């Protein structure tokens, strides 16, 4: 299994987890201070091209952070699917960003830098922080008047790779080159507007820029892990689980799960559309295998009590989909044992038997019943009467801890 990121709360308990966060915050504050982010004239003078210190720190940090994140993902240390990627809300992001820009040039700080300024007793920083508390208060009081705007233009977990439909490696090279170009351009602007001599800065920065570009190219060459790569890392453990049938749940357990309101049941029907239209379980979502990769982000983002049950006519296609979902770090995925055929064997009533006629002897993973009409979920077997059936089965569903963060640092 890919070990990182860690689930700290279950690993260390809450107090120690908070200690780790305190340490990260400490380092964050320390680095902001040594970088000069508590000095408001430095922050402001980047907007007059005189001293681009803050701009340099900022874009260097983005590139270094990005290369380390995608580099460790490329070599399989870190699971990018389990990392919090800020969801995209287009218009509230644009308007909020512009308002922030105005606050930036008037106030000379942003929230993180103002905290460091406050901590180092800069009085202008204290006033900025006090203003921020008022701003947060005003937002809470007013947002309800335009909540459709605030929650609108939502695109979910959307990366630059999704927008431009190019591989992560290319985006990484482009971002790195853009940053290096911007930093170089920044030095030229400083020379013109700030009367600074770039020749006095240490030569090492050229080597540094070269290293960043080299690393970016290497990451692009290695590439981000595909589903097959991810599965081959998991296979030694998970193949055994398949052989032990650890994730194949009895139809009776699925029926009981319908009525377990502590679980959020999501049923994924991976059969052809024709089979799905003939018969499917009530509330089962039709998701043919080719649509699964595009749905991973949404599935991971579901609440922590979500249980996914994959089903096909028997088990072959469902097991393949299970492998994809498990490899992509979707937690709590199960398979309906025996698939829809077994479900119909178990729950079909007089009504379905009238429509279905006899069970036929079809090929593997084909529907074993012949339907005269497309029933969809409009028949008793799609939602069997819970009180009528009692099964003895080995309960297999148990909730794993959700490792993906449920919110970023801005909530």
């Amino acid at each position, binding site marked *: 299994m890919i070990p990182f990121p860690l689930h700290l709360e279950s690993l260390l308990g809450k107090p120690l987890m908070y200690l780790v966060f305190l340490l990260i915050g400490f380092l964050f504050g320390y680095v902001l201070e040594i970088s000069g982010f508590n000095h408001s004239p430095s922050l402001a003078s980047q907007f007059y091209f005189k001293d681009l210190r803050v701009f340099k720190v900022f874009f260097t940090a983005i590139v270094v952070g990005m290369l380390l994140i995608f580099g460790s993902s490329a070599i399989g240390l870190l699971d990018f699917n389990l990392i919090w990627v800020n969801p995209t809300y287009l218009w509230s992001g644009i308007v909020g*960003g512009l*308002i922030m820009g105005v606050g930036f040039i*008037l106030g000379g700080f942003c929230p993180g830098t103002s905290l460091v300024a406050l901590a180092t007793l800069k009085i202008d920083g204290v006033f900025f922080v006090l203003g921020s508390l008022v701003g947060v208060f005003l937002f809470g009081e007013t947002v309800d008047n335009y909540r459709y705007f605030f929650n609108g233009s939502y695109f979910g977990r959307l990366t630059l790779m999704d927008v431009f439909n190019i591989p*992560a490696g290319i985006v990484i090279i482009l971002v790195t080159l853009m940053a290096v170009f911007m930093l170089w351009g920044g030095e030229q602007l400083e020379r013109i507007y700030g009367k600074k001599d770039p020749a006095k800065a240490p030569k090492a920065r050229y080597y540094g820029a070269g290293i960043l570009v080299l690393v970016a190219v290497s990451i692009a060459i290695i590439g981000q892990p595909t589903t097959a790569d991810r599965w081959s890392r998991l296979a030694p453990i998970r193949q055994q689980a398949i052989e032990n049938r650890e994730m194949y749940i009895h139809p009776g357990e699925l029926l009981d799960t319908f009525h377990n309101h502590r679980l959020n049941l999501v049923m994924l029907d991976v059969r052809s559309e024709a089979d799905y239209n003939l018969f499917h379980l009530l509330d089962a979502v039709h998701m043919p295998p080719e649509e699964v990769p595009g749905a991973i982000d949404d599935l991971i983002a579901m609440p922590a009590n979500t249980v996914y049950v994959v089903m096909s006519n028997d088990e072959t296609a469902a097991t393949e989909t299970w492998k994809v979902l498990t490899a992509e770090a979707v937690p709590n995925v199960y398979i309906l044992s025996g698939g829809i055929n077994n479900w119909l064997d178990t729950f079909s009533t007089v009504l379905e038997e009238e429509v279905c006629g006899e069970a036929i002897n079809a090929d593997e993973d084909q529907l074993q019943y012949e339907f005269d009409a497309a029933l969809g979920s409009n028949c008793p077997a799609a939602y069997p009467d819970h009180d009528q059936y009692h099964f003895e089965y080995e309960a297999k569903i148990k909730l794993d801890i959700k490792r993906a963060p449920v919110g970023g640092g801005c909530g």
Partner: protein
Amino acid sequence: MEKNTNTAPKKFQMKNLFNKPSQPYANPYLGGVLLGLVLFASYFITGNGLGASGGLSRYAAFIEDLIAPGHIDQVPYLIAMAGGQRNPLDSWIVVVTTGVLIGGFTSGIIHGRTKFETHKGPNISNQTRWLFAFIGGILFAYGARLARGCTSGQALSGGATLSAGSWVVMFSIFGGAYALAYFVRRLWN
């Protein structure tokens, strides 16, 4: 014989901590590399990036909860943080924010930069600087709530994870600031 008292270590005085000569800031590229390392460590260990405005808003909700606890339960936006028995400070981002304060203070002490002072442009008074810092704080925090994150939570963290929305927010922040800079140049120049 008694030794000369002059050789005894100088008595520790609190005020000396704040009167050290200020050292210059680090090279910006070095600062950037270190900041990138901290950002990566945060993602690598916890799955989450860095943030500041989230912590600030929870402090604000905490203060509001002290003053008007009944009011919190009527504002949907605040209920999520501080509704009912919920403690708005019981969140990892508040802990990070507290760490930022301690880390900034520590570095300031070590490098002789923790001292009462006001930084400002040469042509305005301290009072004007404070007023604009206050107004800027209001606007920045309002915008940060609207955009669901600030320069740390959106631009830096979201930028490094290549979130499309975060890059939009980043360019909007810089765009807003550059667009207005000329008109308020007296504040800083």
